[in-house]
């Protein structure tokens, strides 16, 4: 395909208008407020509001007990089957959560579990620092999920 060259008027050619336009553009970019770089490990980056990151099991802020009712809906909703909910019946034959495993190595952070959860218990948080030293560390148990992911704080 032959691309037609843009026609430049003689005045534009003589006074190099397009080159000067380019210069002015780069000059205006120098304003520090235009700067786009995030000083990541030093400064926490701004994560998008709807970002789905590390999972967490929320506790009731008043009693400190888990909000999970062991309904198993999250495990059923998960397309990757990476959630396992363990429960037992108490005296009143009500389900009580015993243990909870979340395999973040298989999780694709689709958020279906979060949507399925009838209580505000399971939440995919904004935290994104999920690198670990081994595959076995990626199976998060109930304790880890209730504490939430604790990223290493950068100091220097």
């Amino acid at each position, binding site marked *: 395909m032959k691309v037609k060259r843009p026609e430049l008027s003689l005045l534009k050619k003589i006074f190099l208008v397009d*080159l000067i336009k*380019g*210069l002015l*553009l*780069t*000059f205006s*970019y*120098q304003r*520090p407020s*235009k*700067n*786009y*770089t995030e*000083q990541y490990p030093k400064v926490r980056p701004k994560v998008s509001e709807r970002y789905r990151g590390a999972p967490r099991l929320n506790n009731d802020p008043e009693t400190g007990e888990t909000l999970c009712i062991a309904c198993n809906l999250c495990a059923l909703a998960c397309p990757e089957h990476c959630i396992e909910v363990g429960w037992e019946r108490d005296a009143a034959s009500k389900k009580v959560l015993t243990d909870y495993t979340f395999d973040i190595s298989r999780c694709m952070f689709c958020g279906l579990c979060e949507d399925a959860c009838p209580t505000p218990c399971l939440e995919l948080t904004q935290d994104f620092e999920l690198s670990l030293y081994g595959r076995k560390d990626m199976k998060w148990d109930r304790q880890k999920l209730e504490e939430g992911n604790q990223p290493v704080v950068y100091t220097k």
Partner: protein
Amino acid sequence: MEFAIDYILIPLVKIALLLAVLPLAVAALTLFERKIIAYMQVRLGPMRVGPWGLLQPIADPIKLLLKEDIIPAGADRWIFVLAPVISVISAFIVFAVIPFGPEINIFGKAIPLWITDLNIGALYVLSISSVGVLGIILAGWASNSKYPLLGALRSAAQMVSYEVAMGFSIIGVLMLAGSLSLVNIVKAQQSSGVWYVFYQPVAFLLFFICGVAETNRAPFDLPEAESELVAGFHTEYSGFRFSLFFLAEYANMITVSAMAVTLFLGGWLRPFPNVPWLGFLDIIPPLFWFIFKIIVFMYFYFWFRASWPRYRYDQLMKLGWQRLLPLAMANVIVTAILVVLLRG
């Protein structure tokens, strides 16, 4: 004794000072360049070495000097070693004639801020800067490798063709000043009270464009075009020898800026030397004005690099021979006619 001090001791001190300051200036310029280009590209540039990256110019040379110095097996050893030396020497000896400031008094002795005042200073600078091409050609040839050779060929063609237009562009100034000595050119601007850029705006633009091309900087950086030729003529160089080429390139940029300042922007003179009410500016030492003007030019170099894409090779040749050269010649003729008519 008097003779020894005047002709041996003082010049030696000046030379030593220059040789010490110039690499430091180059190191500082690299940080200046990286920061400016970074901000123009909406980034921050070096931030991790020292506060605001200020120690980066110290870390860079240390890294370069500690690196392994490799000479390729197929290279022509002697010429490979010689080439960066030629480059760096020709870049440095130009500074012998550049007037950094007027004469100053130290211990009751008038000491001029130039190493020597050659009566053919402008010619000397032009001729030495063409010797610099030799270093580049030798480097490309001695490397025994495709990319360096291509880079060297391009560099040779480019420098030869832009040298012509550069030479023509300064003739106008020489006619106005009536002298080839750089010191006398500045003094002529002082006595006429006007920077020559106002008499010779076209020549000034031509000189700077050719200067950018001479120093192989963007948008004329074909000899080291990263995207096409890896690193051009210094592809095979590493460590200390590479840093010599690097030093030479930046020293050449300073030279071109210093020449443009001396010939067109009144050297060490303050802005508008003929306007009396600006006299309060005389408190600032002339050396400051000279360095300040050079820094402005360096800023332009970096600004161009951040803004413009590289010329294609045929466009480069076309621009040099078909646009700049005729324009420079026309400028010479018009200036000559005006000088004859106005001086009677």
